[in-house]
């Protein structure tokens, strides 16, 4: 029996085509609003937008092993991971469009998506999600559950203290955490060879007594196999793993990135290696019919279109809402149970 079942392959494929189409549509909406001249604050999706086209296999392959109670922290490039984790697509889209019914009521935006129902979060600072993922693993251990936590990061994040400290913390307490490096070769304009001497990110594990593994291509099936082992080990309380996956950045770092620093050959190579096409071929090899593949694609497209349509119909937040939600309990709200008692200046 193959490690990755046909059903899993289909699910991964569905996640990946959903993510790809989703981001193509976001890109359209984003850029449409930036006409005639690119103005980052214009249009229906303002601000920065980091798309993950070329990373989908990493998300699909890893996350399909997770349950809703497992925690995932993703990066500034979060959509593919969110989709694989089952984040509410409509509310996520509404958030990206800055609407009132978005996951964060329009306060977070695309780098700050929180869906507590499926324990998903992401953030905009490099390696910032590593410590909270470790904390989720710590909570699982303390509560004696078999939940696990997965922290995604880019290959550019392997030089950041938050990641490195987290490796040690997870290792020494044997926490159920898997770190997944999405290696797309670039950190904005900086190629990985220029910022570290290690052959690849999984080597960082060597300095922390942690297993480190790397998947050298964005083959969803291989990723799923390797991730299955790592996550299984975490679930069985055998400690953390550092895992790296080679992915590809098919676009600029963010929308609007001129990529003048990037050799054309590299851009072309990234375009050529498409993990979705590869998985589609694998599906066919496994006997999945054209019709079934088309059915998955169509369903994914429809789902994306519906989410975007729904989101665009949602109301903008009221300006006054900006003042809410700093605290869940602004004036503290805990009933004052202070006894009638004067410790200083009293007469007792």
């Amino acid at each position: 029996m193959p490690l990755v079942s046909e059903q899993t392959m289909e699910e991964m494929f569905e996640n990946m085509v959903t993510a790809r189409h989703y981001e193509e549509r976001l890109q359209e909406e984003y850029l449409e609003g930036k006409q005639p001249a690119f103005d980052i604050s214009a249009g229906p999706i303002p601000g920065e937008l980091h798309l993950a086209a070329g990373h989908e296999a990493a998300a699909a392959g890893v996350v399909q092993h997770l349950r809703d109670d497992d925690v995932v922290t993703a990066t500034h490039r979060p959509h593919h991971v969110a989709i694989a984790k089952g984040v509410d697509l409509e509310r996520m889209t509404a958030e990206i469009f800055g609407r009132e019914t978005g996951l964060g009521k329009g306060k977070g935006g695309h780098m700050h998506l929180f869906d507590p129902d499926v324990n998903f979060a992401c953030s905009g600072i490099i390696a910032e999600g590593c410590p909270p993922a470790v904390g989720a693993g710590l909570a699982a251990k303390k509560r004696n559950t078999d939940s696990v936590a997965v922290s995604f990061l880019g290959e550019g994040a392997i030089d950041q203290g938050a990641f490195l400290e987290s490796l040690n913390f997870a290792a020494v307490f044997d926490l159920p955490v898997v770190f997944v490096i999405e290696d797309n070769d670039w950190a904005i304009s900086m190629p990985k060879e220029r910022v570290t001497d290690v052959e690849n990110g999984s080597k960082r594990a060597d300095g922390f007594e942690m297993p480190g593994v790397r998947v050298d291509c964005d083959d969803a099936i291989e990723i799923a196999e390797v991730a299955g082992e790592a996550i299984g080990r975490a679930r069985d309380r055998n400690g953390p793993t550092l895992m790296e996956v080679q992915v590809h950045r098919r676009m600029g770092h963010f929308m609007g990135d001129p990529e003048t620093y990037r050799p054309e050959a590299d851009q072309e190579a990234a375009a050529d290696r498409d993990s979705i096409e590869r998985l589609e071929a694998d599906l066919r090899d496994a006997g999945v019919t054209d019709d079934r593949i088309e059915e998955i694609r169509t369903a994914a497209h429809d789902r994306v279109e519906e989410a975007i349509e729904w989101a665009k119909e949602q109301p903008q937040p009221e300006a006054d809402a900006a003042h809410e939600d700093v605290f869940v309990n602004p004036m503290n709200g805990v009933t004052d149970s202070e006894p009638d008692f004067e410790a200083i200046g009293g007469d007792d």
Partner: protein
Amino acid sequence: MAESKSTRELTMSRAMVSAIAHEMREDSEVFYMGEDVADYGGIFDSTQGLREEFGYDRVMDVPISETAYLGAAVGAAQVGMRPIAELMFVDFFGVAMDQIYNQMAKNTYMSGGNVSVPMVLTAAVGGTYNDAAQHSQTLYGTFAHVPGLKVVVPSTAYDAKGLMHNAIRDDDPVLYMFHKRLMGIGWMPAPEGPKTPVPETEYTIPFGSADVKRAGDDVTIVTLGLHVHRALEAAETLADEGMSAEVIDLRSLVPLDTDTIVESVEKTGSLVVVDEDYRSFGVTGEIVATVADESLGALESVERVAVPDVPIPYSRPLEDEVIPSTKDIVSAVQRTQ
């Protein structure tokens, strides 16, 4: 006497610990993390006896990785646990500030209130014992400036316990800053005031409720932490000179109890703000501006007494020069009259 049965005199550290122990007994989701908090019992006695009662799992020594363990507290809090994480000296915040202010403080807002971070960050603050520039700061202003953290500063054992109960039960992130000099540590003698009778029962002191530690008519002294005691001492001296000073202990900077301050200044006309933090862009400026905002007409005179924008120097005469003394407070009050 029923009274004597239900209260006893405690040092501030014992009062803090008694609240923590109570909450840990009641709620298995509460745990404590920090450096030297288990066997050592906290460098400033902040966890004395807790490891003995609750074991290493709930009173956890951690590697010297503040980013990792403060961020881990955020992660554990977000899945519903109630961690208390200790930063041994607040001066170390710089190695972990991103987790504190970009996650602990902001995740609630960024999630539109869908996520809460019910954790307490405790940190020792303050000087007066010649520990120099990297171990003597209070940094009250630095943290109160960051939206999303409730910032609490007890000055007595009684307050310390009630505020700690409240902090642990609060669903929002709380920064609980305890002044080393007030803790009642064997090797760092505390002044008279912080050791107070403390009820054995649990009780909470709500945040945003400043406490009038001494009532007076001529001048309002607004302060917090160690300087509550210096202000009370100054008020004694001033009383001898026939001046009646009201001493307000803020107890929390966020939320800030503006009403109590403004009411007092409307009564006295004079405002003296006393702070152990750096003078500029901090607590003293905020309190003065708050009163100016709310009741400019009432404000007849203003003085700010704080550290004069220098790092805390080591040598005794130098540290004494920059950390506001009782005498400095007396002089400032005199200048207002």
